[in-house]
């Protein structure tokens, strides 16, 4: 297990290097630079700025300089926010995204698995159909519509909860709901499908034939196996929720990291784009690893590569 984990972590290094290289190249190919302004800067000033950020050097050297910084854990300065390092910006904003993402994750898991079970265990009934209808809604309504609807229909009408800002847990209510809507619906559908599928398998019939109580069949045999599908989705979901959603953070004025995925690109803030991309990539790698480890625990038939030897 430890060897397996260590090997997977080592494999992550070339992955992140590729991500860094491709992002770096794409950014330089984008037309328009960080210091193109509506109020154009005189050439003298532009030259001073480019010298300060080494943008006057050949791109290959800029790339080498960036990688050397990364090795030291230095993400470089932000171009948009003079005086702030990318690492500072990520350190301030990432925890907020984690809080929001965690709230949404808990909501999505509880509601999604619950609804999926409620539907799958009673497939074909009215209850099942009602839940399916709701999940369709959850999947197809985009978050900016849902967010706005919650703000208008709840926050504005009842004066509560707050329609934005990030002061106390109450402020997380609407954004977490908005962010959780899609994964909740998706998890519900996944759970339902696999519950139905697993419930028809031989080992379930065997368990029943052996006289295992109905509750035990449902909650142990069916649920545990049905959760495998959900766990597969858990990896990308974790990364998606933890890095926040640009739209939700923007609608509810939450100081998370999600907004930088868009604003850093619009500002051509190269180091900040690199920083958020790398954090996101690292999160995906880590959450995929976590999923593989959980797999082994949930399904004894799955053996991790490192364990076989």
């Amino acid at each position, binding site marked *: 297990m430890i060897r397996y984990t260590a090997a997977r972590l080592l494999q992550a290094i070339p992955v992140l290097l590729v991500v860094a290289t491709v992002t770096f190249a794409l950014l330089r190919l*984008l*037309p*328009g*630079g960080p*210091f*193109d*302004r*509506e*109020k*154009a*800067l*005189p*050439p*003298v*000033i532009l*030259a*001073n*700025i480019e*010298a*300060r*950020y080494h943008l006057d050097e050949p791109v290959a050297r800029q790339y080498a300089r960036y990688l050397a910084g990364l090795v030291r854990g230095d993400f470089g300065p932000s171009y*948009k*926010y*003079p*005086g*702030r390092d990318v690492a*500072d*910006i990520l350190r*301030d*904003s990432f925890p907020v995204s984690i809080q929001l993402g965690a709230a949404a994750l808990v909501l999505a898991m509880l509601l999604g698995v619950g609804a999926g079970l409620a539907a799958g265990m009673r497939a074909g009934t009215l209850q099942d159909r009602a839940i399916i209808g709701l999940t369709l809604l959850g999947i197809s309504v985009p978050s900016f519509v849902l967010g*706005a609807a919650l*703000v*208008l229909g709840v*926050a*504005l009408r009842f*004066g*509560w*909860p*707050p*329609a*934005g*800002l*990030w002061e106390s847990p*109450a402020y997380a209510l609407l954004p977490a709901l908005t962010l959780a809507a899609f994964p909740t619906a998706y998890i519900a559908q996944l759970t339902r499908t696999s519950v139905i599928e697993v419930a028809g398998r031989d080992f379930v019939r065997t368990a029943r034939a052996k006289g295992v109580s109905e509750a035990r069949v449902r909650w142990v045999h069916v649920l545990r196996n049905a959760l495998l599908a959900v766990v597969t989705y858990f990896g990308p979901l974790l990364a998606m929720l933890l890095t926040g959603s640009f739209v939700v953070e*923007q*609608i*509810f*004025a939450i*100081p998370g990291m999600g*907004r930088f995925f868009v604003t850093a690109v*619009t*500002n*051509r803030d190269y180091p900040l784009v690199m920083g958020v991309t790398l954090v996101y990539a690292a999160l995906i790698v880590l959450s995929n690893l976590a999923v593989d480890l959980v797999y082994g625990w949930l399904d004894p038939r799955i053996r991790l590569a490192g364990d076989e030897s």
Partner: protein
Amino acid sequence: MTRGRRGGLARARIRRIRVWAAVALLAAACRPLGGEPPPGELRINLGTEPPSLDWALATDGTSFLLLEQLMRGLTRMGPDLRPQPALAERWEVSDDGLVWTFHLRRDVVWSDGVPLEAEQFVRGWRRLLSPQTAAEYAYFLYPVKNARAFNAGEIDDPSAVGVRARDRHTLEVELEAPLVYFPSLTTFMVTFPGRLDLVERYGVDWTEPEHFETLGAFVLEEWRHEYKIVLRANPKYYGPPPSLERVTGYMVDMDSTALVLFEQGLIDIVRLPALEIRRFRGRPEYRTLPLLRGYYYGFNTKLPPFDDVRVRRALAHAIDRREFPKVLQGGELPSGSWLPPGMPHHNAAIGLPFDPERARALLAEAGVDASTLPPVRIVYNTDQTHKLVAESVQAQWRENLGLAVELENREWKVFLKELVSRPPPIYRLGWGADFPDPDNFMNLFTSSSANNHTGWSDARYDRLVAEASRELDPARRQVLYDRAQRILCEEEVPIIPFFVTSLNLAVAPRVHGFEPNAMDIYFLDSVSVR
């Protein structure tokens, strides 16, 4: 079996009741909003994170708004937008207009008790101009002798720059050429005095609340990046103490979200989204005012058919500017002159009026047949407002001239790059005043301006603008600007001014003494809350 089933139902009912009870409890436990707002605290929406509070590096409106509360310059903009004494209690200029002498107040101390000295201006300005600082707005001090050369690295000696402390409280500034509006320039944040001791001790962190020392009506109490900034009244402020104890500035990016927070009683002053203006009109919370911010279309005058001045004039005559406020609904003020209403030396009589017949005649005179002309291309940066304006222009030119018009939008930075590398035939841009002097607008279309993307240059225009910047007599200055504006907006027409943008605010009834102005500067030291 039946008993058991009934028992199950009862249990389910009890469970359901329990759930509802929990929900009700939870709802009761949550304190509703809209209770008493914090006394003595004003809550405003900044919209965005100020990129920097280091006034040598700041360039944007949010930083400027905050620095106006935190700092003072030699002069300060009054409510009438004319420079008034601030750190300098008086000043005089030499007869040749080249040397300005500022006499500083003697009672000013920074928030850490350090007294204000003329030398702090000298060091601050040298830092602004040093190539290593790489300040974007260093060019604001280019009128100062040798400032540009020092900033360009052509001279290394900072003491060659024309600013010196004659004694502790007297600052002397030598200019390259006379400049009548110099006291307007010194209201601007980049000219504020510098505390290099703090910059050296704390590096880039010197603007964080624990190190930041200022001398305005407020000091920085808290800065949660990308979220909010809290200012506190400065007990050491030299002026009358502000009535507000605290100002909280949130960074709510979306105006619609900010408006809901306003209606929930969480923010006191917000900008209204265009679609909401109609709903607020007539309500006491609504404040509107035209800004010193012009919106115009520029021609690439090197490209046919726009190299022919008659075509440019025809296109200008074919625009009914009254359409824009109807389309945009933001209280836009149509203006055919480049100097916006509210700016000194504005002249409402200047500009080509809507005259479709004259337009068609001009086009015919230029030998242009609109029906055979390939479509005219308008390029704008992707944005709903710019799209609406472009569609209105497209419709008007088609209707009034029979011209086919193509609209193309670009992402912001792509658009800016294109303006410089190969300007489109027709493009949109805006300009907001940095300081309320006509030179800030008129300078834009001189031959040497980096913001002139039209390819048009006119020696007469350059000369008039330069002369006006030195002219002390307001009446003569008016004549010079009128002449220059006629060349720009009526004769040569490298640009067509469309309208002036308006400020649309909702201000909570608890806020008193808040007077918006055309520069969108907040004078929070004279605001109070109930």
